[in-house]
């Protein structure tokens, strides 16, 4: 299969969906710049023109309401936030209205088929308000679907799926994944929403991961394999609805669970997965569950602090070793080099 970057896959998914569905349009700050939200909207602009891909002022809350109002009339708006942190300003429209619309009006006011794309930042000193990861609060409240593609194939597939779904869908895309390459189907094949992916099979321990942490987990798993440890990596892909079946099947197989995602542990996705395990796979567990999350403080800027803030492949590998009661191997060299160039 031909390979694409995650960014190109996002773009292709959107373009193919727009080809088939004239109701789709894309708006938000900067979507029509030549840089096209890191190369994910420029092709759509070229193909479909400014009537379907257009800029917006900085007005996160109203723009979300506007997307709702257009969706309700039969459009499929895609709104894009260059950083998902800006979305707090839109939580009222998103959680108090879009998420509840279908239910709250008894199904009589239609559905809200809108898609919110939002980018998670990381590193290079982006700081506390440009590197958060909002999956947990978005998924806490019923009514939204929340997706986090971790590979190019799913970047395309989940975009296609979101653009066929009648619920409001939030896609959280990780900036650090945009350059990742991988095989991507040319055909417009949606990735099923609500289905996790076994990113790597293994026997000794299950790592449930999301978004950029899937990449870290896979890197850790490769290194652990060299040390004779067989790790299964489950990429959840969809945060809500969460595919607990796949997660539980894997836990039942390995008996051990480590969970890691891009946000904080407290009331986070990692808490949810650990809770599900403790409720529904308790008998299969051979030892305590472990969560690996960002440090419990706002994101700092300075490089050594950022390095301490984010868990990485080596952190995961070390945690797996500890969970299996093994004495520490040296995993220091395994982390990917950060070759990101600023400003961002």
């Amino acid at each position, binding site marked *: 299969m031909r390979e694409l970057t995650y960014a190109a896959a996002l773009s292709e998914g959107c373009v193919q969906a727009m080809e088939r569905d004239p109701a789709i*349009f894309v708006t938000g700050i900067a979507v029509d710049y030549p840089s096209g939200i890191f190369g994910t909207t420029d092709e759509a602009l070229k193909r479909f023109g400014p009537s379907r891909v257009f800029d917006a002022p900085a007005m996160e809350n109203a723009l979300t309401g506007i997307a709702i109002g257009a969706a309700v009339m039969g459009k499929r708006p895609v709104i894009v936030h260059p950083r998902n942190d800006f979305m707090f300003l839109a939580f009222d429209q998103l959680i108090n209205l879009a998420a509840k619309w*279908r239910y709250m009006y008894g199904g009589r006011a239609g559905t809200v088929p809108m898609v919110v794309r939002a980018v998670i930042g990381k590193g290079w000193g982006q700081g506390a308000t440009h590197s958060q990861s909002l999956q947990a609060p978005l998924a806490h409240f019923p009514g939204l679907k929340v997706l986090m593609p971790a590979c190019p194939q799913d970047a395309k597939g989940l975009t296609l799926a979101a653009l066929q779904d009648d619920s409001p869908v939030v896609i959280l895309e990780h900036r650090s994944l945009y350059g990742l390459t991988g095989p991507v189907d040319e055909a417009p094949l949606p990735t099923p929403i609500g289905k996790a992916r076994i990113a790597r099979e293994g026997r000794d321990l299950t790592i449930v991961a999301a978004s950029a942490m899937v990449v870290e987990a896979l890197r850790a798993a490769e290194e652990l394999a060299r040390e004779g440890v067989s790790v299964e990596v489950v990429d959840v892909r969809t945060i809500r609805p969460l595919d607990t079946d796949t997660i539980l099947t894997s836990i039942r197989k390995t008996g051990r669970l480590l969970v890691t995602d891009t946000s904080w542990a407290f009331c986070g996705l990692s808490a949810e997965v650990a809770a599900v395990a403790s409720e529904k796979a308790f008998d299969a567990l051979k030892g305590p569950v472990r969560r690996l999350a960002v440090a419990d403080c706002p994101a700092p800027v300075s490089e050594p602090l950022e390095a301490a803030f984010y868990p990485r492949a080596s952190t995961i590998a070390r945690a797996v070793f500890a969970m299996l009661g093994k004495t520490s191997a040296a995993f220091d060299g395994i982390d990917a080099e950060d070759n990101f160039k600023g400003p961002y």
Partner: protein
Amino acid sequence: MDALTPDVKRRLYRSVFRLRRIEERLADLYREQTMRTPAHFGVGQEAVASGVCEALGARDVVYSHHRCHNHYLARGGKLAGLAAELYGRIDGCARGRGGSVHLTARDQGFIVSSAILGQTVAVACGSALAFRMDGVPGVAVSFFGEATCEEGVFYESLNYAAINRLPVLFVCENNLYSTESPLSVRQPAGTALTDRAAAFKVEAHQVDGNDVFEVWNAARHAVDSIRSGGGPVFLECMTYRWLEHVGPKFDHEAGRSYRSREELDHWIARCPVRHARERLLAEGLVSKAELDAWSDAVEQEIDDAVATARDSAWPDAADLFENVH
């Protein structure tokens, strides 16, 4: 554009009268504590809903806020659906899921009301954007109270509508209070909300919100101008809420003193329903007998709707998850 013909006048009067009687009767029933849903009655403000909705066409869409019964009804929402919703029954317009503040009558062009200030102002702009994109000559109407003009989302929406010359009619019902707070707490002295809209390059007019003919006239002009591509219009309709903010009582009855009995009396003297009736009578456009017949028809409609609502089944607890995904 239609003129204020005798027919229109008669229609407008019937509309305000009907809204008045419905809200009064619902408020009476509300005292029984069997409508378990916080309800914000619109008694006193009927002329705004009637005047605007009578100026709309079939394709136009209407949004409202927490004080929404008048708008739902004036736009054609079924009374039985409203009553059943208040009683939490399955035949409620939102199948007992929404309550008084979450009404819908999509097929009649009343999309929804919602309980969070400012939400539907933006949503109306989105529907207007959809009209524009589809080349449909529809107008989206957003009804809201003047407290919505304190929320930032209102200005974001105004700006967006003006930039894109969207077909939106913003209808502010300025009833002088937000819950118990007077305007002085919420607007700088000397404020004209129309100046604000105008500063956003939105055509703006203040009208007597207790004069259904004037409201209709203003709305009719606005809708016409909007439909022909003139961009959004903002109408500030000055009016007054007779009952307490939420619930069926008069404030004095409930022992509240944030506004005076005199002030209420002053506004009752400017009753939009009586005003319209007197004008019809004075102009010889209606007879006493007709008025009686209209009145009987409304009472009958209410009796029937309430009976239907009370007979309606409760939603089944087994259907709790209906419409989740």
